[in-house]
C-alpha cells in the first residue's frame, strides 16, 4: 500500500518539484519559454485526452478551443481591461460553453462523422476569427500586453510558475475525476453505450459533460497561450495544429495524465525538433532504438505479430535515414509527422506511457490497492417486502413494426409482483423485440407499458432504467475494458450523492464514497460467486462468468423488475445450473423477473407463469405445465425443441 503510494505520488511530486526548481538554477530565457509552453500544452492535452482517450472519439476541435480561449482572454485584456484571473476565467467559460454547444449536436455522432463535425468547427472558428476584423484584427493579428495578476505584473519566471501551478491543479482535479464514477462512466460508454444507458448512467449527458470539460481546459490553455506569446493570429489554430495535438496524445499515451504530459513535451519541442538537426537525429535515433527494443521483445515473447514489430522499425529507420539525407527537415514536416504517427499507432498502440507503465509496474511490482471488505448484502440489495402477487408490469396492446414486418403485433400481458415470468417462443417470434421495447431501446409503434399502473417512459433505455427496470443482454454488453468490480460499480452510481456532482468530484470529495462503492460492488460479486475475480477485466472472464457478471451488474440497480434476455444462452451444463441458482437467489431478494429463455427445462424449473409468443403474438399463457400441454405451443415451439434438443440457443439475435 505504502509502496504504491510512494512510487506513484512520489513520481508526480518529484516531477513538479524538479520543474519548479528549474528557473532557480537555469537562467536561460529560451529554456524557460519552452518549459512554459510545456505547461500550457500539458493542460491542453489533458483536456484533449478526455475526448480522445476516455470518450474514444477523434476530436479535431481542440486547436479551435485553444484559439477561442486565447482570443477571449486577449480581447478581455485589450478591450475590457481585465486582470489575468478574470481573463483566464472568461476563456475557461467560453471553452466550456462553446464545447457544450458543439457537443450537443456533434456527440450524437460516432467515428468519422464526429471527426468531420469537429473539423468543420475548427475551420469555422479560424474563418470567423479571420473575418471579424473589427473585433479580432483579422489576419493582421492581435497584440496583447500580459495583464497583472491581482495587480502584480508577472515576470517570465513568475508566469512560468503560475502555468506550472495551474498544470498541477488541473492534474490533481483530473486525477480525482478519472478515478471516480465519472471516469468509469466515460470508459463504460465507450465500451458499450447501450449498456451504459441501460444501467441508468446517461450516455449522452456524460459525453457532453466530458467534452465540455476538455474544451474548457482548451480555453484555459488558450488564455495562458495568449499571455505567453502576447500576439495572436488566426492561422495558428488551423487544422495542422489539431493534428499535432492528436499526435501528442496518441504518442504520449491515451487515458493517462503522464501520457498527456509526455505528449505535451513532444508538441512543445516539435518546432525545435525540426529546426535543430542534432536534436532530430537524437530523437529519431531513440525512437528507432525503442522500436527495435519493443519489436524484438514482443517477437520473442510472441505478444505481437511480425508486421507490428517490423513496420515501426522501418518507419523510424526511415526517419533516421531521411534525417541524414535531407538538408532542411522543416520542408518534410508532414512526412515526418506521418511517419511518427504511423510507427506509434502500429508499434505502441498504448503510447509511450502506456508501454512504460506496463514495463515499470512489472519492474517495481507495484501492488494494487487492497479491496475493502464486502458490504452486507442487505445494504446493497435490500430484500423487498413479501410480494402481493398484484400486477406490477403491464403491457397493453403493444406493437412494434419495422416497415412491413410486424415484429411485435399487439401484445397484452401482466407480470405479477414477486414472480418469475417466462417469455418463450421460437426464433423470430418477437421476444427480443418485445424486451427492447419494454426496456426503452425501441419506441413502440403503439401501445403502452405500465409499471405500478403508471406508464413507463418510452424509447429511452436511460429513463426506463431510472424508473426501476433493469435488464441484461443476450449478446453480452459488458464494459469489456473495465474490471468485473468496476462493471458493477458503474451501475451502483445512483446510490451515492457526492459522486454525481462534477465540482465535488473535481475537488476530490468523492473519495470516501468510492471506498463504499467498492465494498458494495464486491458484495454483489460475492452474491453471484465472482468475488475472487473482482480485478479481472471483463473481457478476460470466461463466457459463463461474463453471463453471471451481467446479472450482478443489473442487480446493482436495485431494480423492481429485472429483465433477463436469454441468460442461459450458450452456457455449458454446470454453468447453466449455476446460472439458475443465481436467478433463484436474485428472486429470493424480492426482485420480480421477466425471463426470456430458449431452454424449456430452465423455464420449467424457474418460472411461476409463462407466456408463449409466435409471429409477434401471444399463442398461450399459464403455468409451465399448462402451457406445455397446449397443442399450439407444441406445434410452434416444443416440436422444434424435440427435433433438436441441443439447438444452439444463441442463434437468434
Amino acid at each position, binding site marked *: 500500500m505504502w509502496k504504491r503510494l510512494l512510487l506513484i505520488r512520489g513520481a508526480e511530486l518529484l516531477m513538479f518539484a524538479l520543474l519548479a526548481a528549474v528557473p532557480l538554477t537555469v537562467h536561460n530565457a529560451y529554456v524557460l519559454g519552452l518549459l512554459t509552453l510545456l505547461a500550457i500544452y500539458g493542460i491542453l492535452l489533458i483536456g484533449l485526452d478526455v475526448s480522445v482517450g476516455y470518450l474514444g472519439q477523434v476530436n479535431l476541435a481542440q486547436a479551435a478551443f485553444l484559439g477561442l480561449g486565447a482570443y477571449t482572454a486577449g480581447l478581455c485584456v485589450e478591450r475590457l481591461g481585465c486582470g489575468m484571473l478574470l481573463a483566464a476565467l472568461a476563456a475557461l467559460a467560453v471553452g466550456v460553453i462553446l464545447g457544450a454547444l*458543439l457537443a*450537443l*449536436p*456533434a456527440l*450524437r*455522432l*460516432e467515428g*468519422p*462523422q464526429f471527426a*468531420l*463535425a469537429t*473539423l*468543420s*468547427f475548427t*475551420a*469555422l472558428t479560424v*474563418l*470567423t476569427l*479571420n*473575418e471579424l476584423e473589427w473585433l479580432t484584427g483579422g489576419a493582421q493579428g492581435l497584440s496583447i500586453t500580459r495583464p497583472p495578476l491581482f495587480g502584480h505584473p508577472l515576470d517570465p519566471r513568475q508566469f512560468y510558475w503560475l502555468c506550472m501551478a495551474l498544470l498541477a491543479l488541473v492534474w490533481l482535479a483530473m486525477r480525482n475525476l478519472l478515478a471516480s464514477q465519472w471516469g468509469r462512466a466515460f470508459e463504460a460508454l465507450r465500451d458499450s453505450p*447501450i449498456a451504459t444507458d441501460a444501467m441508468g448512467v446517461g450516455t449522452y449527458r456524460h459525453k457532453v459533460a466530458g467534452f465540455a470539460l476538455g474544451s474548457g481546459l482548451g480555453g484555459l490553455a488558450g488564455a495562458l497561450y495568449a499571455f505567453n506569446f502576447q500576439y495572436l493570429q488566426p492561422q495558428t489554430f488551423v487544422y495542422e495544429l489539431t493534428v499535432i495535438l492528436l499526435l501528442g496524445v496518441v504518442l504520449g499515451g491515451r487515458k493517462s495524465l503522464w501520457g498527456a504530459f509526455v505528449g505535451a513535451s513532444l508538441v512543445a519541442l516539435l518546432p525545435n525538433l525540426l529546426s535543430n538537426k542534432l536534436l532530430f537525429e537524437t530523437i529519431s535515433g531513440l525512437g528507432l532504438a525503442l522500436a527495435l527494443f519493443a519489436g524484438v521483445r514482443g517477437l520473442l515473447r510472441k505478444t505481437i505479430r511480425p508486421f507490428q514489430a517490423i513496420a515501426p522499425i522501418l518507419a523510424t529507420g526511415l526517419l533516421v535515414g531521411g534525417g541524414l539525407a535531407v538538408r532542411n527537415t522543416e520542408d518534410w514536416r508532414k512526412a515526418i509527422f506521418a511517419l511518427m504517427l504511423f510507427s506509434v499507432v502500429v508499434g505502441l498502440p498504448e503510447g509511450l506511457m502506456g508501454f512504460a507503465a506496463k514495463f515499470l509496474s512489472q519492474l517495481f511490482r507495484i501492488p494494487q490497492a487492497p479491496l475493502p471488505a464486502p458490504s452486507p448484502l442487505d445494504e446493497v440489495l435490500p430484500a423487498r417486502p413479501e410480494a402481493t402477487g398484484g400486477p406490477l408490469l403491464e403491457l397493453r396492446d403493444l406493437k412494434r413494426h*419495422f416497415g412491413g414486418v410486424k415484429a411485435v403485433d399487439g401484445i397484452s400481458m401482466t407480470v405479477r409482483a414477486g414472480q418469475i415470468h417466462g417469455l418463450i417462443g421460437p426464433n423470430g417470434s418477437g421476444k*427480443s423485440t418485445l424486451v*427492447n421495447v419494454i426496456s426503452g*431501446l425501441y419506441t413502440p409503434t403503439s401501445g403502452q407499458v405500465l409499471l405500478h399502473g403508471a406508464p413507463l417512459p418510452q424509447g429511452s433505455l436511460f429513463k426506463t432504467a431510472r424508473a426501476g427496470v433493469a435488464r441484461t*443482454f*443476450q*449478446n453480452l*454488453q459488458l464494459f469489456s475494458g473495465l474490471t468485473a468490480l468496476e462493471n458493477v460499480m458503474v451501475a451502483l452510481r445512483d446510490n451515492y450523492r457526492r459522486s454525481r456532482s462534477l465540482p465535488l468530484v473535481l475537488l476530490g470529495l468523492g473519495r470516501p464514497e468510492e471506498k463504499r462503492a467498492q465494498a458494495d460492488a464486491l458484495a454483489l460479486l460475492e452474491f453471484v460467486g465472482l468475488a475472487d475475480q473482482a480485478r479481472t477485466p471483463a473481457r478476460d472472464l470466461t463466457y459463463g462468468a461474463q453471463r453471471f457478471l451481467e446479472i450482478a451488474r443489473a442487480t446493482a440497480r436495485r431494480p423492481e423488475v429485472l429483465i433477463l*434476455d436469454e441468460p442461459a444462452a450458450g452456457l455449458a451444463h454446470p454453468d447453466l445450473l449455476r446460472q439458475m441458482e443465481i436467478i433463484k437467489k436474485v428472486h429470493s431478494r424480492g426482485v420480480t423477473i421477466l425471463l426470456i429463455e430458449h431452454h424449456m427445462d430452465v423455464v420449467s424449473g424457474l418460472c411461476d407463469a409463462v407466456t408463449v409468443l409466435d409471429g409477434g403474438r401471444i399463442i398461450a399463457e399459464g403455468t409451465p405445465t399448462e402451457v406445455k400441454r397446449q397443442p399450439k405451443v407444441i406445434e410452434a415451439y416444443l416440436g422444434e425443441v424435440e427435433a433438436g434438443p441441443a439447438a444452439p440457443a444463441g442463434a437468434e*439475435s
Partner: protein
Amino acid sequence: MGISATRTVMLSYGLSGMVAALAGILVSPITTVGPTMASALVLKAFSVAVVAGLESGFGVVIVGVFLGALESIASYQLGSGWREAPGLVLLILALAVRPTGVFGKAVIRKV
C-alpha cells in the same frame, strides 16, 4: 463465397481513384493546380459524402450542387471570406439531425 475480398477492395479503391482523377481533369481548368490543392477539396468532398449519406450516389450529386450554390450565395452576400461558413454550419447541423445523412438509411440498433 469464392470472391476474393482483397481483390474486391482493391477494385473499389481503384474505381474511386478513377472517379477522383476524372474530377481532377474537370477541376484543373478552373483552379490552380498544385500538390496541396487537394486539402481544401478533400474536406468539401468528404462533407458532401457524409451529409448526403455514405451509401447514396444520387444524394451526393444533389448535396454537392446545393453546397456549391450555397457557397456562391454566401460569398456574394457576406463577402468572399465568409464563403465556406454557411456550409460548415449546415454540415454540423445536418449531421446532428440525420447522423446517417440526408439520403442515408436509418440504422436500427440491435442488441
